[in-house]
């Protein structure tokens, strides 16, 4: 039978505020264990939380970017469960009255745009980190565990999507778009591998055309866009096979194993979790007035989707526009290069092609590399006035990236400037034509194949510096 996957995604993002969600401790990863801690984030007896207004503002930023309504009045609650790296044995989170509700994010897959609903965006605090010493690094088999509370109380934001996603590819595009927006807003570094952005997916299948949802499975432990897509593809196939065999899908949480390329059921809990949520009595409701909301809304930067639309209007192909729009640094370099006179598509092609490849090779970021808007504008100018060939331009780029100087300096030093002016080329071409009367005759009689031969001869005579296009045009004039 044909099934339609129904997917919803919950994304957790660590906010890059200076201080933690409910205390003044620094948010600073990589500090020695248990150094960024205080009575509040250690949950010491008597300590009380105070909401970090900056974190609220960051979460509001994301909510507004996702077209959510911002609640005038939102409430923190206690989510109760015991875990050794959670200092109070409850997590302060938002439950039935979150900060942001009912938004959406437009997602592009290929040429197709689809709208994914955002149920809510809420704030909460992160837990500490456990390191289990002993077999397998799991708590059950550990001889003992080490606890680091530097992360405890770091502001987390959770974005919950509606079950509007219909394929693994679309899920990947959604997370990618969301990540791009978060990076553009500058509220998180959203590193998937390091866990500052993490996501779980709920996936179920239903027969194509059916209204009712099937039984959903929660898939966890995917730490890259690729693993998200693979995990969902696997899970969709697994559920389809079950349904085809007449078996039921069990509602459970499944763990994605990247190496095995499969999901497996996590150790079943003896009982379902009952988090016993109730309003956090140590905090008053978060009040967001109109003025605050407007101020945050006005400070929103252009989001990737908006940049993409603008780049398309500037003449870029949609795919290239999307790639550039998603990358804050590439977008900045692109815009500066175009402002400097560079031709948009040429600059964009370099950025998404050659430049990306070069940076990957040298493991540097665009911001740290000598390739900037001015360099790309100059390079594009040289290609446009035909003083550089397309292949020479790539070589020049490599030189610029290696720190050899500006494009002009690199092209000159490497002797890559091509000759395209007629005054310099005509005498050489005339010599070549004179030396190859048979070829000239063939060309005149309509045999185009010899053009390549003649251009090659001119290139050889100029030591490869002639602009082949210009050469071809002059020869055609001569044949005229």
């Amino acid at each position, binding site marked *: 039978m044909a099934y339609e996957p129904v997917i919803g995604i919950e994304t957790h993002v660590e906010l890059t505020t200076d201080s933690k969600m409910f205390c003044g401790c620094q948010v600073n990863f990589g500090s020695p264990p248990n150094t960024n801690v205080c009575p509040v984030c250690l*949950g010491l007896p*008597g300590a009380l939380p105070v909401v970090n207004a900056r974190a609220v503002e960051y979460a509001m930023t994301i909510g507004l970017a996702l077209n959510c309504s911002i609640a005038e009045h939102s409430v923190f609650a206690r989510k109760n469960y015991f875990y*050794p790296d959670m200092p109070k*044995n409850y997590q302060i989170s938002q439950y039935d009255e979150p900060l942001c509700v009912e938004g959406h994010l437009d997602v592009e897959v290929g040429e197709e745009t689809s709208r994914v609903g955002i149920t809510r965006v809420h704030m909460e605090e992160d837990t500490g980190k456990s390191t289990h010493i002993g077999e397998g690094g799991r708590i059950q088999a550990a001889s003992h565990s080490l606890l680091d509370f530097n992360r405890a109380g770091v502001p987390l934001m959770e974005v919950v999507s509606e079950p509007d996603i219909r394929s693994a590819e679309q899920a990947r595009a959604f997370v990618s778009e969301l990540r791009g927006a978060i990076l553009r807003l500058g509220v998180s570094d959203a590193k998937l591998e390091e866990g500052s952005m993490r996501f779980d997916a709920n996936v179920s299948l239903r027969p194509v055309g059916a209204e009712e949802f099937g039984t959903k499975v929660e898939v966890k432990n995917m730490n890259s866009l690729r693993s998200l897509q693979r995990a969902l593809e696997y899970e969709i196939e697994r559920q389809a096979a079950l349904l085809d065999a007449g078996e039921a899908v069990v509602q459970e949480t499944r763990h994605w194993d990247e190496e095995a390329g499969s999901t497996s059921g996590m150790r079943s809990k003896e009982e379902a979790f009952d988090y*016993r949520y*109730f309003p956090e*009595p140590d905090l008053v409701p978060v009040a967001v007035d109109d003025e605050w909301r407007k101020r945050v809304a006005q400070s929103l930067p252009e989001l990737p989707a908006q940049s993409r639309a603008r780049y398309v209007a500037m003449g870029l192909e949609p795919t290239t526009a999307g790639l550039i729009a998603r990358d804050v640094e590439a977008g900045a370099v692109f815009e500066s290069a175009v402002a400097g006179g560079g031709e948009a598509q040429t600059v964009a092609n370099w950025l998404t092609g050659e430049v990306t490849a070069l940076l990957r090779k040298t493991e540097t970021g665009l911001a740290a590399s000598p390739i900037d808007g001015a360099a790309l504008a100059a390079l594009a100018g040289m290609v446009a006035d035909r003083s550089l060939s397309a292949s020479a331009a790539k070589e020049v780029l490599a030189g610029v990236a290696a720190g050899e100087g500006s494009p002009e300096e690199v092209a000159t030093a490497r002797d890559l400037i091509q000759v395209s002016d007629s005054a310099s080329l005509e005498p050489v071409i005339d010599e070549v034509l004179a030396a190859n009367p048979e070829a000239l005759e063939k060309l005149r009689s309509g045999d185009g194949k010899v053009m390549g031969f003649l251009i090659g001869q001119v290139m050889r005579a100029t030591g490869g510096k002639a602009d082949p296009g210009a050469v071809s045009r002059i020869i055609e004039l001569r044949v005229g």
Partner: protein
Amino acid sequence: MGDLADLTVAEAAAGLRKGDLTAVELLEAVNRRAAMTEANLHAYLTVDREGSARAAVAADASLNAGKDPGPLHGIPVALKDNMVTRGLETTCSSKILSGYLPPYDGTAVTRLRDGGAVIFGKTNLDEFAMGSSTENSAYGTSRNPWDPETVPGGSSGGSAAAVAAGSALVAFGSDTGGSIRQPAALCGIVGMKPTYGLVSRYGLIAFASSLDQIGPLTRTVEDAVAALEVVGGYDPLDSTSYPGAVPDYRSGLDSGVSGLRVGVVTELNGTGIDPEVQAAVDATIARLEQAGATIVQLSLPSVEYALSAYYLIAPAECSANLARFDGVRYGLRRHGETVEQMMSNTRAEGFGPEVTRRILLGTYALSAGYYDAFYGQAQRVRTLIIRDFEAAYQQADVLVSPTSPTTAFAIGDRTADPLSMYMSDVCTIPSNMSGDPAISVPIGLDSSGLPIGFQVMAPALGEPVMFRVAAEVERQAGFDARAPYASSEAR
């Protein structure tokens, strides 16, 4: 001058400034008194001899240097052992915090230190402030200085006993359902619960966060004012802290009650109240009327449900507040094969029966499927209580009642029946539910020679009128009896 330990805060403060006495002498007097009474009363869990000696010397030095940081400067103070004190053991009278040395001072403690107070020691309480007699302490029951066979009340029983016995001139406690006022009443002293949010809870080990409030236990109403002046006021570390300025409490103390409307709450007077207690309360109301107050009889219908609602809200909050005591980071740890076993063993051994009972009650009240019927319903009752009080304060400036339905009861009398113990707080719980201030003032002794307390309640931030009426009650009662077990000739 008599024994310095018998001075009020106001008298001692005046003496310090006149040079009649020093903080060191005052501390010595309190030390002597404690040495004499502690064996009988067990008001203290910890006495900080070194710290208090240093603080007294420093207080004298700064007075000599012409500094005067406030009304508790140089005064020996006792703190309920649920207020965290840097480097000084803080146990909440629980085994689970045995030996716990907090790395920080709570805000009230910081303000006391900054105000030159001499922190003498930490007083006994019912474990985690859950109880009305101190019998739930893991470290032994405190005893009432009026009759050591009876309880001092609770949960701030140690604080009340210390002030009544003269082993502190002023003490601080916490009041979640009456835990300052009821022991003050049973020990014949003044006990006051401020408006919720007036005193920072930062550093108060939480029992029920939405109800807990720190307040003073003193010998006089004026001393309660002095104590509140020092610890009250906005604290950015407590999100529920009241952000406004602290009003002037003193100027009305001598104004009398002429022209004030005093409301007698039908539901909190008469039924269920010991006749001797009610008679003393009625006599006090009559004296207020003679002093010029208008007496208004009024009803707070929802108050009948206050106790039931309280015993859902307070345990629900405590079930989460006490979850952090798990043996992982501090306090008691009992080994287990798994981390769950370790936590479970630690908690089973660390918490006493009443704390365990309330955690279970609260966990149940919050669980899926029961939340709305229990916790949700209790919150709705709370809203009704707040509305009833608001309506009542349209008709009266203050409301009055007995503080406790009975005087001090015998040790062991109510331990077998938690419900009878819970009834001790029937008159005090409503003010916690509404977040309003209330004070207990001693008005006399019953036929067994045990003190009777009179409660004055006021609307939120109504401390000035509450103190004004309380001061009149105090003057009219002329209560100046001393607890027999506070005297140097203790039996």
